[in-house]
């Protein structure tokens, strides 16, 4: 109010009271605007769930819960089941995590302990920038560069090599298409790799230097410090980060759609083409005619949202607990 008094020296008491009241009203209005914005965020979330449920309703009524584990997908006879898509989503994501988590942790160890100091920042920044590259780039590279190379140089020799080994020959049976479940998993793992490395490195850097120095002082080797001090200390953060990455992998559309092959039967081998929930929706939604086709795709979306919600929510709870621990 100081400036009012300065500019208009002869300000009357009622005018000043009015100005103060205006400020108060503006104050409440501003708070209400921010509150409304916060409620809109909640509204969007509720809207997403509601719209998925409403969109899926005809299909939910027609197929019920068995939809999830039915493995038929036939738009002509309007018989739909989610299992090939759900199976593809789970398998590709877990295979991708299986590769990306150890490699990502390896990169983080390299960046925090082994890498020459001069290179740490540039490599770290490069990895963070790569984490921001859109998934469609990974997809197009997978389709044009990786899949043809993989088909000739890995799949063919691999299939020949395991041809006489009892279990493996079934798991990796079939002609080498290049595209398929394994290819999609590999592209996914390359895509989530920078993300996992960046998160893990950040968590490693929160480990107090004193703890590490104490361990080194006791004569631990670098590996023992990483395995017995840094990793246990950072465990919750690493797991939380990995779960966030899993959430991304489960819902990833473009990196997978290019190279999964979009085959709607249960894949008979890991090299065979398959599909994922997001790839099915992306490929078929605009062509979905009939009363049950589009609702079944919504139903798939609902299942996907449900799975990722569980994964992301647990990731959040873990990371929150970690923050609280760091805060005290």
């Amino acid at each position, binding site marked *: 109010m100081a400036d009012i008094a300065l500019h208009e020296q002869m300000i009357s008491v009622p005018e000043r009271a009015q100005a103060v009241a205006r400020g108060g009203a503006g104050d409440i209005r501003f708070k209400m605007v921010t509150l409304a914005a916060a409620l809109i965020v909640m509204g969007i*979330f509720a809207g997403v769930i509601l719209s998925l449920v409403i969109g899926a309703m005809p299909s939910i009524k027609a197929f019920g819960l068995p939809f999830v584990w039915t493995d038929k997908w036939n738009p002509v006879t309007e018989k739909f089941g989610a299992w090939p898509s759900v199976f593809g989503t789970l398998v590709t994501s877990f295979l991708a995590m299986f590769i990306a988590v*150890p490699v990502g942790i*390896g990169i983080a160890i390299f*960046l925090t302990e082994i890498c020459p100091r001069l290179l740490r920042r540039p490599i770290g920044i490069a990895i963070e920038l790569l984490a921001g590259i859109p*998934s*469609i780039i990974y997809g197009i590279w997978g389709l044009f560069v990786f899949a043809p190379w993989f088909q000739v140089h890995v799949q063919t020799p691999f299939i020949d090599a395991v041809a006489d080994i009892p279990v493996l020959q079934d798991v990796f049976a079939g002609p080498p298409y290049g595209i398929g479940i394994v290819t999609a998993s590999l592209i996914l793992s390359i895509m989530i790799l920078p993300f996992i490395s960046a998160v893990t490195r950040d968590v490693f850097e929160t480990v107090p230097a004193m703890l590490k120095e104490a361990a080194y002082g006791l004569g631990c080797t670098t590996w023992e410090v990483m395995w017995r001090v840094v990793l246990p200390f950072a465990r919750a953060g690493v797991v939380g980060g990995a779960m966030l990455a899993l959430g991304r992998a489960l819902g990833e559309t473009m990196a997978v759609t290019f190279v999964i092959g979009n085959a709607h039967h249960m894949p008979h081998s890991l090299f065979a083409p398959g599909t994922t929930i997001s790839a099915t929706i992306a490929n078929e*939604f605009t062509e979905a005619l009939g009363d049950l086709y589009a609702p079944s795709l919504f139903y798939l979306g609902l299942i*996907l949202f449900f799975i*990722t919600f569980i994964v992301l929510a647990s990731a959040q709870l873990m990371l929150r607990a970690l923050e609280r621990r760091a805060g005290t």
Partner: protein
Amino acid sequence: MKTNQGLIRRRRIANGFFLFLSVGAAGFGLIWLALILYALFSEGFSAINPKVFTEITPPPGEDGGLINAIVGSVLMSGVAVLAGTPLGLFAGTYLAEYGRYGRLAFFVRFVNDILLSAPSIVTGLFIYEILVAPLHGFSGWAGAASLTVIVIPVVVRTTENMLLLVPNGLREAAAALGAPRSNIIRAVTWRAARAGIITGVLFAVARISGETAPLLFTALNSSFMNKDMTQPIASLPVVVFQFAMSPYEDWHHLAWAGALLITATVLTISIIARLLEPKRH
């Protein structure tokens, strides 16, 4: 002493082995990423020529460019940022300044972080259900709306984080001068956190410039020069997807050119954002 020597040797060997593995992991991971960038730049640069920026997407077998897709992407991203930024800014402000430890703020934060990493294709389904199906048509507005849904959580998250970095002493000093709370927020905390908030908006732009999945069935696509947001509209990522999946060689070249444009945009924006970003402690 003998066993001790053996133990030390074993530990040294284990150390060497595992450190070798982690160097190997780093090399392995970085090689793939380098290969992707190499392919992208070599294929992309050979496909980029002035026509890319002057002509519209061609039918197969003819010459053409990507200008309609570029314009569509800029239009929809622009609308999404203009709509999403204020919303995200206010919601983030609520979380950091008013809600903080409240129950509502807890839920909003939780929900926001879920939306932040929720599958983007689900966003497309959501907008389809509320905008495309009721209005009987795909449109640029629907595409922009689906991108807005992606912008908001990014801006909310960074706004809250950046406001929380502002020292409470600043707020208290302003309050002691008699400033109402809304003035404190607008004139003091927002100003102190400005660089960080702008970073957040830039990250949101980077994030949506490559988003494909939510546009597939909201904005759809268009092979004409369309600036009418009430009609289906082309966008770079969707064109890249469509052209890459096609069997035509010349469409593949344009897809690489588009992919390079997207990556260059995203990298430029994220580098600017990083330069602006306040130092983390």
